[in-house]
């Protein structure tokens, strides 16, 4: 029992992005308090500046292939962590930008909004690096509690309060479940770090413990049957928070899920494939079918999000390196398409004060730009080529059939048809129905910027996905022991004709 902490500067360098962000969120808070007369928009741009620095730092990590672990293997920086951190920070930047207009509607505490967003982002960055169960617990709660506040942020809005309270009650309930699950796993193994757990024999306690932990992560990503908070929370929350909630925490949770399933539970793969196949089928089917009946665009996107998570779980169910690549790539496509769609929802919501699908009637006449953007995002979510979502789905499905998961493939394909139906309802409203109020809509600059980024991402990932796929492939190198056996040698090309 001796004190054995040695930390060098280069060790701390591994945490540079997190440290930067911590400093920066303190700066934002201090600036907010110290300069009460500062217009709050500036805080948004200040936050974006800090996040951009963090992003550059992370990109440098990625290019320079910085890896390492800290604190007895609890904090790990590898390509996977860096990939997810880049995703999270990018999502946060976009969310801050789409918040600018929305925050003006708040009556007070505008500055703290940005602080809390940065705070949640920090929690999620730690999540991406979490390599043991204690970190999982702490970072999960850390990143969630910021959302409790953000969801209930519209203090005078009954729906927002209600969403916040529902989210909170279920969130802490699941936190209790998670803590208990961690205690069981600890009791069975005596260890907390993922890689140490890997050697454990499967026992009832371990199985239940891991299922409880899976429940907590499933709650975070919104997989059926742990999805129940999603529609209400998405519906009631301020829309930028909904957008944030629909992307970043899911990405971070997938970082943990990947580590947990592919490292800790690698030897038990036959058992959890079944679990994930079930969760995936349920999520896709439930999300898509219930989405058909929705009248509110935020709820529609919430259910579509549940369905998309079902798609991503297919990749996890494949349980191979390729499945991992597919998840990473899919999350990227989902980031752009979903954030873009929410950006349009926010832009429209700010302008017409409504999120009902009915009020999207004739959007094309009022703002062709918004309608076109929404069309592209929805088609990408529906998986229409050559947009990003198509490549993502294709990749996931190929990963699944390489593992022989035909059931998942067929259910997934049927679900694509169903999902098309409700996306088309929105498209039809926008393009074909008559507007009730034909006055044109004008989109503000930060909003436009985010929508353009979303469009560019959706198109580029679809038309020229290779660099991103390469990136995803390199990020999951740690899972290469799961690589499928090399494909049989392809015979030389024979043209059917002459040559």
């Amino acid at each position, binding site marked *: 029992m001796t004190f054995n902490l040695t930390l060098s500067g280069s060790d701390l360098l591994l945490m540079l992005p997190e440290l930067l962000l911590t400093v920066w969120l303190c700066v934002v808070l201090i600036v907010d308090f110290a300069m009460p007369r500062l217009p709050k928009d500036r805080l948004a741009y200040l936050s974006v500046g800090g996040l951009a620095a963090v992003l550059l730092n992370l990109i440098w990590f990625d290019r320079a292939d910085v890896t390492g672990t800290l604190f007895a293997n609890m904090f790990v920086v590898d390509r996977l962590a860096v990939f997810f951190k880049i995703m999270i920070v990018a999502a946060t930047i976009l969310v801050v930008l789409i918040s600018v207009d929305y925050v003006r509607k708040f009556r007070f505490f505008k500055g703290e909004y940005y602080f809390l967003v940065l705070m949640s982002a920090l929690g999620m960055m730690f999540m991406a690096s979490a390599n043991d169960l204690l970190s999982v617990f702490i970072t999960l709660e850390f990143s969630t509690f910021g959302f409790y506040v953000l969801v209930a942020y519209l203090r005078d809005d009954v729906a927002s309060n209600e969403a916040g*309270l*529902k989210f909170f*009650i*279920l969130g802490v309930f*699941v936190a209790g*479940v998670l803590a208990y699950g961690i205690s069981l796993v600890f009791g069975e193994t005596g260890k907390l770090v993922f890689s140490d757990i890997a050697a454990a024999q*499967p*026992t*009832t306690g371990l*199985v239940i413990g891991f*299922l409880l932990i899976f*429940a907590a992560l499933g709650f975070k990503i919104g997989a059926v*049957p742990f999805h*129940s*908070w999603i*529609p*209400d929370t998405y519906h009631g929350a301020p829309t930028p928070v909904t957008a944030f909630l629909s992307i970043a925490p899911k990405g971070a949770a997938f970082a943990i899920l990947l580590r947990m399933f592919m490292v800790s539970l690698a030897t038990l793969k*036959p*058992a959890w494939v079944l*679990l994930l196949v079930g969760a995936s089928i349920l999520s896709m089917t*439930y999300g898509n*079918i*219930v989405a*058909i009946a929705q009248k509110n665009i935020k709820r529609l996107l919430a259910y579509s999000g549940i369905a998309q998570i079902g798609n991503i779980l297919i990749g996890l169910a494949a349980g191979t*390196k*390729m499945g991992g*690549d*597919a998840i990473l790539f899919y999350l990227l496509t989902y980031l752009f398409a979903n954030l873009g769609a929410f950006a349009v929802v926010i832009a429209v919501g700010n302008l017409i004060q409504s999120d009902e699908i009915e009020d999207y009637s004739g959007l*094309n006449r009022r703002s062709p730009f918004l309608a076109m953007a929404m069309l592209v995002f929805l088609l990408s979510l529906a998986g229409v*080529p050559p947009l990003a979502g198509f*490549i993502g789905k294709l*990749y996931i499905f*190929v*990963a699944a*059939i390489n593992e022989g998961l035909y059931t998942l493939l*067929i259910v997934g394909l*049927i679900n*694509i*048809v*169903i999902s098309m*139906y409700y996306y*088309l309802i929105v498209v039809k409203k926008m*393009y*074909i*129905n*008559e507007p009730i109020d034909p006055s044109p809509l004008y989109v503000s600059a930060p909003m436009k910027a985010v929508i353009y980024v979303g469009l560019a991402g959706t198109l580029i990932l679809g038309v020229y*996905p*290779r660099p991103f*796929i*390469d990136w995803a492939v390199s990020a999951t190198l740690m899972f290469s022991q799961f690589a*499928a056996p090399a*494909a049989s040698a*392809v*015979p030389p*090309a024979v*043209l*059917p*004709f*002459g*040559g």
Partner: protein
Amino acid sequence: MFELLVILIPVLPLAAVLLNGLLGSRYSHDIAHRLGWGSVGLSFLCAVGIFVETLRTGVAREVVAYRWIFGGDLTVNLAFLVDPLTCIMMLVVTGVGFLIHLYSVGYMHGEEGFTRFFTYMNLFMVSMLLLVMGSNYLVLFIGWEGVGLCSYLLIGYYYDRVSAAKAATKAFVVNRIGDAGFLLAIFLIFVNFKTLDYTQVFAQASQLSTGMATAIALCLLIGAVGKSAQIPLYTWLPDAMEGPTPVSALIHAATMVTAGVYMIVRNHVLYDMAPVALTTVAWVGGLTALFAATIGLVQTDIKRVLAYSTVSQLGYMFLACGIGAYTAAIFHLMTHAFFKALLFLSAGSVIHALSGEQDIRNMGGLRSKIPWTHALFLVGTLAIAGIFPLAGFWSKDEIMAHAFTHGQYVLYAMAAIGAFLTAFYMFRLTYLTFYGRSRLDHHVAEHVHESPAVMIGPLVVLAVLSVIGGFPGVPPESGWFHHFLHPVTVAAGGGEEHGAGFGLVATLMVVATAIALLGWGLAHYLYSVRTEAADNLAARAPGAYRTLLNKYYVDELYDFLFVEPAKRLGVVWDWFDRTVIDGIVLGVGRLTQSGSAGSTWIEKHAIYGLINVVGYANHLAARSWRRLQSGKVHHYAAIIVAGLFILVHLILVWWSGSSGIGVASR
């Protein structure tokens, strides 16, 4: 140079799409339409260049634009395969497309959203070119989805029409059902071959088991049926006529709907290994050809008649594929593109002249007022009816002859009856539109005018093509066209036999001509000589007439089973009541009423019942499942607990049941 030309073919329209789409509002309509048709025209020139080169060297070449997807063992390039089949398709698509673009300049003049129209049209050209040029299934699939999307956007072009909106959604969703089948086929191909390139797939195809080949071929067929509007997924095509007429001509007649035929011909190696699938293709085609033709007999909307004739003609192409006459299928595809584009565009010219009137009951006697349009339409009618020696004669005759010489007498009979009906309803259309007494509304009649040269010009070209378009395929089964396509459409093992003697071929030709003339004659008799006879006939068999007029009530059935219940928040009992009780009552009533058409109706009932019960179940599930989201937190927590409980048991039970890993316990 060759590579550049190939890549330019789709890139040129794409550039026009980007320019018009992003900057279209900044410049005048003139620039927009010049970009639109200009880019397609240049693509056509490139295609001609490629065609000449391929003709000269006779070598199939693959042109890789760039590596598209690469990860794991999935490698797909954005690549184009240039072989005779592609050349023909490129020429048809860009050539006909170019003419239709030119025509649109006149037709769409002054419409709202002129630039948008050309943007979508060019996007359609890009998609269609990717579809026919792709060297692997994924590029084909992009084009496949792209044309579906453009069709959705263009059908819904007139957004003030409610029917247009419905038609657009219907088209897309029905297409998507087909696409799911197609995607499944793609995945099956990937599983079996670990590649999606045509050349590699076809080279390895012989290793496939018959069962797997049949499965793949049938899945592909589902896709083709959806796209090419065959039974049972054809309902979207006639509704798709809600779009502007050039769209109907381009998408729903000349190019997009032929994608299914192209796909089957492209994959004939797989089909040749699956006789069951081939037979299915043949029967689907034969039934569609006959079925759509009967509906076409009594339609009163000029565009709808043409739409059903398109469905019917596509049935011929499927029939040809099904009996192994792939070259004939492509030949008919080509000639059909010429005369159907001609017919649609002339119909558009009629509609244009009559300020939007589409009902043939309100036309008549237009021959003298719009002589050019009349002449052109007549050429198209002669071609589609199969009058010697126009284009349609050669291609249709070849299909029928092939069926006959290969012993498929039933299919031959269906095709022959279909041909008779085709001739009949096309001439009926012509007589009702251009001959006889004018039934025009006098406001309209005052403004009847011949279309401008920019519209008539392309029509003349198409008319010439409709006349001479059949000659590359002469003599049947051994013409130039067949030699050119021979390397693609003939499987490595066998070859198309040329067993039929000259005498038989000539006899069949005479029979075919006789059938067409008979149809013409009947139409002439009923609609020109004794104009009251047709009405009498209809009055004498009112049930049959009304059934046909209502398209066998398929759409009503669709509404009845799918749309109506979905609109009302029905409970299961209500649904049961409606579907089963009312269904039986109504079904019996209609059955007796429709007489001769009864058997077909039951078939439709069964198929559509199935599809729509699935669709309705979705709605029902949507409405009942959402009750799970009760809004109460403790219910949500209970769902989580219950889910967890089930998962724990699932895993533990599975675990204790499986060998290998046992759960240790004390």
